[in-house]
Every structure is written in C-alpha cells, then in structure tokens.
C-alpha cells in the first residue's frame, strides 16, 4: 500500500478529482493549505503600500492506494493538475504500513 500526497492548485481540484474517481480510487482527502515553493509568493500594492503574498493558497490531497494503482494515479494527477505555469505543485509517494477501517476493524488493502 502506498500513500500519495499532492499539493495542487485549488483551481485544478475538480479536474484531478474526476480523473481519480474514473480510475476507481475509492477515497480522497483534501486540505486547504497555504505555502510556498521555489516561486516564493509575489508582491501586490494595497492603497499605495506594497505587500508580499508569500503563502499562496493550495490544495493538499492525500490518497491511499494499492501498489498497482500508483502509476495510473500519478499519471491522472499530472494530467489534471498541470497548467505548465510556475506553481503547479508537487507529488510525494510514501510506503504505508497499515490501514484500519474504524467501523468494522478490517485491516490491510481491504480496508482502503
């Protein structure tokens, strides 16, 4: 089992979600987060004074999948989230030891 985390643009959430549900991903958790990467925010003026917006709003997705779904999921996120402009985000993949469904107590891949 793998856990796939992705930081994406809020505007791309729908695209990504549609592609993932099409693949048969059964669950998906999204967080509204703020952060910066290499781009380091940008400056704006408010009533004549400059200010830096260094934490930009992003969506942080967390998806748990079995090994065979890792590549199609990554592909789906890349397709859905990519605009080609700086700030498209990143994908992180980590191994997962255990999944437990709270209602039934099931463990392992069946609990995903």
């Amino acid at each position, binding site marked *: 089992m793998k856990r796939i985390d992705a930081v994406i643009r809020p505007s791309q959430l729908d695209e990504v979600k549609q592609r993932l549900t099409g693949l048969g991903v059964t669950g998906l958790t999204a967080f509204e987060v703020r952060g910066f990467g290499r781009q380091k925010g940008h400056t*704006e*003026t*408010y*009533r*004549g*004074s*400059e*200010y830096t917006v260094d934490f930009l709003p992003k969506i942080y997705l967390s998806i748990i999948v079995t090994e065979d779904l890792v590549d199609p999921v990554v592909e789906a996120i890349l397709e859905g989230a990519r605009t080609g402009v700086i700030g498209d985000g990143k994908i992180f993949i980590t191994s997962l030891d255990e999944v437990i469904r709270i209602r039934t107590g099931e463990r392992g891949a069946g609990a995903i």
Partner: protein
Amino acid sequence: MRYGFGESSKAWILKAVVALLLFGAGGGTVRGVLAQDAKPDPAGTATGDKGTVVDATGNSFVVPEPTDKTAPDFTANKKAFEDYQAQAAKEPLALKVADDVGHLRIATNFSWTLLTGYLVLFMQAGFALLTCGLIRKKNAGHLMMLNFAAYVFAFLAYYAVGYAFQFGAVAINAAPSNIGGALTLNHFLVGSGQWGFLGGKGFFMTGPAYDASSNCLALFEVVFMETAGYIIVGAICERITFGAFLLCELFIGALLYPIFGCWVWGGGWMSQLGSTMHWGHGYVDFAGSSVVHGVGGFCAMALSVILGPRLGKYGPDGKPRAFPAHNIVFVVSGTFILLFGWMGFNPGSTLGATDLRIAVVAINTNLAAVAGSAAAMLLWYFMFGKPDITMACNGMLAGLVAITAPCAFVSPTSSVVIGVVAGVIVCLGVLFNERKLKIDDPCGAISVHGYCGFFGAVAVGIFADGTYGAGWNGVGAASYLGKAGQGVTGLIHGDVSQFWTQLGGATLMVVYAFGLTFGVFSVVNKVRSMRVSKEVELTGLDVPEFGMLAYPEDAVEMLATGSQAHQGRA
C-alpha cells in the same frame, strides 16, 4: 492604564446619569414657565396655518402691515396690505382654506425632512460596513461595537446639551421656516444678535424644544451629528480603547460639532458675515462639507496623531506597510449604502419638498459621486498599474463629501468638476498622510472627510452660479450684485468676496476642529493612555475588550496567526 469600568467608576457613572436625568426633567418645567414669547407646540396642531403659505419664490400669502413709515416702498406696501385686508373680509372661506394649505405645506416638508433624516440614519450602516471591511479580521467585532456605541452615546450627548448649543438660537437668524420655524429656540448663551457663538435654549429637548417643529429639526440634525461622530472611527480603529472612544463621542456630540454647527447653521456669527461685514452671503455650507465632514475629518486627524500608528504599520526603515482589507464585499456594499443615504443628506438639507431645487441637488450629488470615483480609479491605474477597489470607493465618498456644501448652488457640470478634483485630492491625500505625515488612517477618513470637506466648502466660493439662494443668510433678498433673484455666487460668476469668506471659514474649521480636539485629548491621553496594550493590539481587540470574536469560527486560526499580526496578515 486603559479606560475600563472598574467598581469605583461604575458608581460614579451611575451617579452622573441620575443627576443629569433629574436636571433634564426639572429643567423642562422651569424653562416652560420662562419661555415668554412663542409657545412650543408639542401636539403639532398649531404649526402651519395661513401664515406659512408662500408661493414658489417665497412671497407670503398673508400681507403684513408695514410699520416703517420712512421706507421708500411704504405707500405701495400699505396699499397691498389694505387690498389684502379688504379681500380677506370679503372671502373668509379663502382664509380657512389658506389655513389648511399652510398646515399641509408644513406637513409635506415634515415628511420630506423626516424621511431624508431616516436615509441619513441608514448611512450609519454604510459606515459600519465600509470601515469594518477595510480593517483586519481580528478587530472586526471591536470596530462594529465602536460604530454602534457611537450612535448611542453621541445621541444622548446631543440630546442633553449639543442640540441646545447648536440650535438654541436658530429662530433669531436662521429660522427653518419650511418646517414651521422652531420659533421657541431664540436665545444665545454666548453672544447676541448677529454675533452669536453658542445657542442657549432646548437643553434635554424639553421646554421650548418640546415642540413639533423643533423635534423635526432635531431628528434631521442629530443624524448629521452622528455622521461626524462616525467619521473618526475610520482613523482611530484597531488601537483605541472602548472607554476612550466613548469619551471622544461625548465630546463630539456635546461640544465639538454643535459649537461650529451653531456658527454656521444655528444663525451664529459665521453665517451672518454677509449682513455684518458684507462678505458675500456669509459663510455658506449647504449640507455640511465643513460643518459635518470637515469637523469629523480633522478631529479624526488629531486623534490619530495622538494615538500614533498601529503596531507594525511602519517598518524599521520608516516605510509604510500594507494591512489589506479583510472584506471587500463589505467595503463596496457599505459605499453604496452611503451613496443612497447621501440622497437624504444633501436633498434633505432644504428641509422641505416644497423647495423644488431638491431635484438639482440630487443630480449634482450623484454626478460628483461618480466623477470622484472615476477620477480615483483612473489616477490609481496610472500610478500603480491597477485600480484599487478600496480607493475607488474612497473616490466616490470624496466626491460626495466635496459636493455636500455646494450641491444646491452649482450646475451639474460644475458638480462633475468638483467630483473629479475631490477624487484626485483623496488619492494624493491618502498617500501624503501615509508616506509624508506618517499618520496612520486605516480607512482614509482624514483624506475623504477632512481634505475633501475643506475643498467642498471652498468650492462653493468658486463654482456657485447665483441661480439659487437669493436672500441666503439674510443677504440680497431683493437683489444681489445688481440683479433681482441673484443667489449665492462664487468666484467664476463674479463674487470674489464669497470665495474669500469660504476659504477663511474652511481654514477656521480646520484650526478649530484639529486644535480643540488635539488640546483636549492630549491632556486626556496623559491622564490615561487611550491606546490598548501591545499584547491586545497584536492578538486583536475583539476578545480583550468585549469577550467575543466577530468570526468565532476563526478562533483557532486567530490564535495561531496572532504572532504574525504585526505583519498585517491576521
């Protein structure tokens, strides 16, 4: 130490309130006996009869008996009087009808004055939304409470003494004849005749002020005073303690606003300069560019100087930092509510719907508003590459403030010019305050109301075209500048003296409002700091001052970002 309501001050406040109320109740009966001449008419049944019937140009239906036998037109007047008497004897029914017409005329004007007063009242909601939207989320509740309490406490101060100081002698030189004249208010406390400095009748709105005509005036005027009271919120918010703020409101409602208001609108000395010194039509401010907005704006400036800038507003390099508005939707809807309310503020200031100039006033007011906003948007676009939504709103208010004094005396085209100039003034004023003077004014109140209020008062002396206001402040009822029916006239239409009167009067307003406020509150601030503690300012004033947040769902985020507050993000 901040202003809090400790145990000892609680008892003190209670005693003061009881004493004031007793004085008010007793004062009513005493003054009721003392009022010798005109009788108050609380029922409203004696206000408006054939004596108040006038034609469109102000000629009275009832012809008075001429008394001055040396007057050149005595014979003609005497004949007119005799003709009227003969006609009246023949047609008693016509006199009865005239009584009804007179009552209806006053009733029409009451309706207009009261309804436009309610519109002005609604401006308070606009101010609350506008200023709340412009500040940071963490102080939103505190700011709304300032706006709310301002209405409550300034109203009571105005009821107790403010109204009497401002209009206690209005019947002497400036009786509001459209609404029955408020004839019982006829005594100056300081000064007399055409050199009045302070009104002296109508304390606690009882005795001579317990009168339908007077109360109609009082309703309309109290909401104007409230406007001045609200203006200061925009400049002193996010750092003033609630207690100190209430003191400011009592000061404005009882003293600062009524005194200057008496000089200009209560028949006081500034309004009479046309008669006494032959300076134009005296100092003219139709609906309050200077009396309301200028006084409020420069009072706000003095308070803002005393309080100092918000923590973190200026970096170590002295450069101003942006504290962005937390809700632009509030800012824009608040501005629209203010525009709507201004349709009461300016056209209502005729105190009568029988004065058909109200249509011109309404158009002029709107034109200046849109011209001011357009100018601010364009100027900002050229200066910074994008129009700023908050400055576009400030531009509209700037146009409104500037047209408030001249709205009845100028043409629609002049109104557009006045609006454009105000839109430029407000933008440059905001930058000047923030960058050069280093006065922290979160909502631009000083620039919008102070600077544009000053300009508006001067604009009367420049653009007034003489089509309206014949006999204004008792000047030139028969003819002015050699022309019959010539009204208030400005520089470009041939009356230089009006320009100098306006410039001098507006300058006096600045010195008066800034000086008196600065003097009084410098002392107050020395006795007890008017500012919240550093910790309170950083976490936000909502919980420390009132125990609740404007947006409780943000409680966790608030605590987490409290440490970043000085960077203006929370």
